């Protein structure tokens, strides 16, 4: 009985751990109609925005302040197909693959709303497969750059030495996000296929995974514009 009195004192005064916990967990909600899982994914993506934002700003600072010419991405990432040099062709293909995976993911979320178990799962597996092919092409791109072009994090034959470190850091961190996304999507898709979300009565897990995947695509839009095209 005395414990209860102490607890209500703490709640009323807001002092001590119990008071603090009760303040944070009181019956209030800011984001109506949005579950905690979805809100927390958004908050995570917001923090990730600042990480990628800082990376891109670091890249901008290096490129603006270097006195050695910056390598021309259009030429560095050209690919020779049948005797003709196509500028940035591999990057363009990677862009289309990632956008397609975003399209299939959006449709998976939509079928999730309709509780269409099979279509949701199939579209998610397809999204993961497209993500995997993106990572594969990125591995090919990295190999070509390291082995054939001789790009290192500390130097490269084309120009400013920061080019390598910034390229590996930004595309590496993005590729890590894609790889984690492929695993995440596969796990959620398997749960959908197994019928976990039907038993739970909500397909929201699909929507939350979708937010993460679209964010990965979103980051690529900025990397494509600032690193490859600029």
């Amino acid at each position, binding site marked *: 009985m005395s414990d209860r009195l102490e607890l209500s004192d703490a709640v009323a005064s807001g002092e001590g751990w119990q008071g603090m916990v009760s303040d944070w967990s009181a019956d209030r909600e800011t984001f109506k109609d949005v579950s905690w899982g979805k809100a927390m994914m958004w908050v995570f993506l917001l923090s990730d925005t600042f990480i990628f934002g800082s990376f891109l700003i670091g890249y901008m600072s290096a490129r603006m302040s270097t006195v050695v010419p910056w390598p021309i991405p259009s030429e560095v990432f050209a690919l020779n197909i049948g005797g003709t040099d196509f500028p940035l062709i591999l990057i363009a293909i990677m862009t289309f693959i990632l956008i397609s995976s*975003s399209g299939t993911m959006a449709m998976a979320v939509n079928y999730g*709303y309709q509780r269409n178990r099979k279509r949701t799962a199939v579209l998610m597996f397809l999204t993961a497969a497209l993500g995997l092919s993106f990572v594969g092409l990125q591995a090919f791109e990295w190999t070509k750059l390291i082995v054939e072009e001789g790009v290192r994090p500390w130097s490269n034959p084309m120009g400013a030495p920061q080019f390598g470190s910034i390229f590996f850091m930004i595309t590496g961190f993005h590729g890590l996000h894609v790889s984690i996304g492929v695993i995440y999507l596969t796990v959620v898709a398997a749960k959908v296929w197994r019928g976990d979300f039907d038993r739970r009565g909500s397909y929201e897990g699909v929507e939350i995974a979708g937010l993460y995947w679209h964010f990965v695509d979103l980051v690529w839009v900025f990397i494509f514009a600032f690193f490859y095209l600029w």
Partner: protein
Amino acid sequence: MEKTAHQQHPISTYLSIWLLLFVLSTFSYLVDFFHVEGTMRWFLILLFMFLKAGLIISVFMHMKWERLAMRSAILLPPLALLVFVALMVIESNYVSGSRATAFTPVSFVAHE
């Protein structure tokens, strides 16, 4: 149940946005392919980038169907990055200026 928990849009909504993203990506690739240079290049790159980002956030991530409390909580904080960009532009100009006056860039390209 809440209305947003059951939001449904015809599949054509997603297909048309998907197509639009394809077209915009093609356009931004063509900017490089046709060697558009100067101010026009930066303008087109940024235009296509923001259009693509806007479509992904608003439709694919369903942001345009969220309430204002949610939209402002997520979309306003990144604006702070613009302040960061402005600060670093000033700093980078200063650094490149002092490098140009104090160093000769011969040894910058390291050996294999």
